């Protein structure tokens, strides 16, 4: 099966891989201890299925013991052992490797190998998502092949470009910038993958990638981000669109340290003046949903019952008047000689955000607020938001299945909390949610935290694109797990071409 992609992979080493294609490929070459099922339940044990670990138990509230499957082997024949798991944990946490995933492993105090098939994870405190943290972030690495390489040189080692893994697929060939091939391991211990060969083909231009798909030179694409291209695919009879809940949400984050955003009522007024449905509708048409808060449709806590500020320009105007921001003769609001205006950083990498920003600017102008759009390069925006040197920034977030990923961006003191949001109620709600023992107990607490975030108008949460993968009709058995579209590719098969009306199952 040929996969069309617009970006090449960087390295194929799970702790270090950062680019999309690199992550997709290394996910198929290396395994986790256990995988999330399609339901993305990150709290209960039943939400996971065994992979490298055949079973696990909780001897006490701070420990999980995994029993590895003796059938699991590295592609050079060596068995996957507990020593590999311990080595992997050390590698991910090693500052010389500088893995972006290291902070997620902070709750784990230690990983100790018992015998060759038993490994114990010890946590610093009890919380319901221990299993999730133990399994989701790390993909196990082969100690016997990597322990002689100094940590700082891991990313640039030959192994990172031609890895030996234990997954359903083996690395075959990589022509940089052009294509990457992996072949199925027919003797994989959990069953033979349905498709024998996967080839990622790089076309930097989105239109060319879609053209290849439509011409039959490629069979699948993870997501079609542009509306015009979606319409092209819709018209084809050989390619069908498979929708799945998106792990993204995008919004305008206010820098709460800077006026006028220090004033909660002003923020609420600005949020109420934005007709989010119109923005989303015009930029995406039917291909995106209005974001309900700091949560993506993929996450289980997503709900359209989350309390949001209404679209009410009259109320917004009254609020601003009440705070002393009066309209001048030119319609611009001022207070004590200062005009109500701010700069909005928008990354040049996203056409949709640029389009949305223009509409937003227009809507706010009618309220008497002057928004200056500053298109900047993505790396520049990263730098400025990290340094707090911005008024408002139009960012997009990729969430993990766990609702706790909320804390990465909205918890006080979190490095990625660029707006400086710090609210005691929000904190206590999220802390309680983290401690709740069951999913049913945690969900309402998370939702109330999201309500609070919306009430405080820390950001204008705008949209979540409706992800649609494009897959050729000759591929059957297609299921898509929203957080990683190829997570279930072992179940896909190359079959007879079927008409486009026959849609594969997507996630719940």
């Amino acid at each position, binding site marked *: 099966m040929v996969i069309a992609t617009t970006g090449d992979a960087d390295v194929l080493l799970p702790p270090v891989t950062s680019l999309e294609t690199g992550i997709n490929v290394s996910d198929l070459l290396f395994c986790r201890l256990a995988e999330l099922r399609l339901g993305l339940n990150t709290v209960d044990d039943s939400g996971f299925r065994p992979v490298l670990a055949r079973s696990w138990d909780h001897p006490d509230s701070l420990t999980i013991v995994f029993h590895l499957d003796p059938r699991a082997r590295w592609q050079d024949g060596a068995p996957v052992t507990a020593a590999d798991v311990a080595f992997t944990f050390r590698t991910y946490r090693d500052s010389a490797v500088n893995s972006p995933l290291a902070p997620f492993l902070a709750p784990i105090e230690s990983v100790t190998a018992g015998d060759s098939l038993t490994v114990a994870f010890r946590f610093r405190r009890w919380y319901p998502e221990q299993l999730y943290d133990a399994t989701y972030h790390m993909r196990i690495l082969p100690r016997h092949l990597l322990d002689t390489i100094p940590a700082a040189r891991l990313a640039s080692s030959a192994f990172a470009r031609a890895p030996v893994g234990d997954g359903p697929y083996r690395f075959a060939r990589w022509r940089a910038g052009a294509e990457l091939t992996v072949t199925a391991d027919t003797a994989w211990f959990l069953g033979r993958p349905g498709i024998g060969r996967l080839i990622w083909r790089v076309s930097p*231009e989105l*239109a060319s990638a879609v053209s290849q798909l439509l011409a039959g030179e490629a069979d699948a694409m993870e997501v079609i981000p542009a*509306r*015009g291209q979606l319409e092209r695919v819709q018209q084809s009879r050989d390619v069908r669109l498979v929708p799945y809940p998106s792990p993204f949400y995008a919004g305008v984050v206010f820098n709460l340290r800077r006026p006028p955003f220090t004033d909660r009522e002003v923020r609420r007024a600005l949020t109420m003046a934005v007709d989010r449905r*119109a923005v989303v509708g015009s*930029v995406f048409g039917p291909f995106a949903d209005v974001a309900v808060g700091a949560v993506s449709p993929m996450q289980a806590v997503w709900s359209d019952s989350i309390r949001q500020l209404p679209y009410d320009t009259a109320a917004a105007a009254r609020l601003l008047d009440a705070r002393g921001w009066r309209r001048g003769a030119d319609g611009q609001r001022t207070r004590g000689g200062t005009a109500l205006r701010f700069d909005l950083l928008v990354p040049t990498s996203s056409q949709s955000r640029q389009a949305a920003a223009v509409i937003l600017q227009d809507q706010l102008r009618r309220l008497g607020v002057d928004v200056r759009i*500053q*298109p900047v390069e993505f790396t520049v925006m990263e730098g400025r938001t990290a340094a707090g040197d911005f008024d408002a920034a139009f960012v997009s977030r990729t969430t993990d299945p766990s609702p706790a990923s909320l804390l990465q961006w909205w918890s006080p003191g979190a490095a990625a909390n660029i707006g400086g949001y710090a609210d005691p109620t929000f904190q206590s709600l999220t802390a309680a949610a983290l401690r709740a023992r069951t999913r049913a107990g945690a969900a309402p607490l998370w939702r109330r935290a999201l309500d609070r975030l919306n009430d405080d108008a820390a950001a204008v949460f705008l949209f979540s694109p409706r992800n649609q993968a494009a897959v050729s009709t000759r591929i059957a058995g297609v299921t898509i797990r929203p957080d990683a579209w190829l997570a279930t590719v072992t179940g896909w098969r190359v079959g007879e071409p079927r008409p486009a009306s026959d849609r594969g199952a997507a996630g719940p």
Partner: protein
Amino acid sequence: MSPWRVAARRFARNRPAVRGAAVVALMALAALAAPLVTADPLAQPDPVRLQDRPPSSTHLLGTDPFSRDVLSRTLHGARVSLVVGVGAALLAVTLGAGVGLVAGLAGRRTDQVLMRGVDVAMALPRILLLLAVLAVWENAPAAAVVVLIAATGWFQTSRIVRAAVLGLREADFVVAARALGAAAPGIVRRHLLPHVAAPVIVSASLDVGNIILLEAGLSYLGLGVRPPTPTWGNMIMDGKDVLLTAPWVALAPGLALVVTVVAFNLAADGLRDALDPRMAV
């Protein structure tokens, strides 16, 4: 009759050149008049329903992915292309002529130093430098683009001017003027400049077309004058993803580019033929 009038006569007799000049004038007129006769190029009247509409009676060239009127944007784009093209060409020849004059008139040491510098500068990969600088500069105004393009493109002119000056230094009339006691600035102004002007004008006019294409290329990569200000290059960038479903978005600015550059090149060829008939073929 003055050599200028002779040249003007020759130009007027060259029909393609005259047509080229006429088109250029028309473009300039359209660019100037654009804000008066067309809609706001930045307006997005109905972002939901008016995206990528084909040409119709209300939008003669259709709309783009942001529901903006393509005709209006094309005409406004002419302003950027013309200003950058002519401005950068003028600035470049001024720089080049200045350096060339100094090199030609000054002593041998200065000449050597300057010309070595020009040799080194000519080896710089222009596109790479422009890309690197513009990628960094977040919101480079049109003036910055003009200066950057000019600063990387004056070298050939300096060589031409230097050669012309060197050739003229030993010419009889200059020697005679010197012998008569005329001061250097006077010699430059009265005798050298008219003779140097011809190759300079030709060089500048031939440059304009290339500079317009260069600016379009930079805009296409997202690095020239930034959106939402329309330039023909960034209109093509907007249109490339909808090339198959809404081809007019990229076709209009592309055709405008071709027509304008052809016109400038015709006029430039005509100028060259008129000012230096020895080179006419």
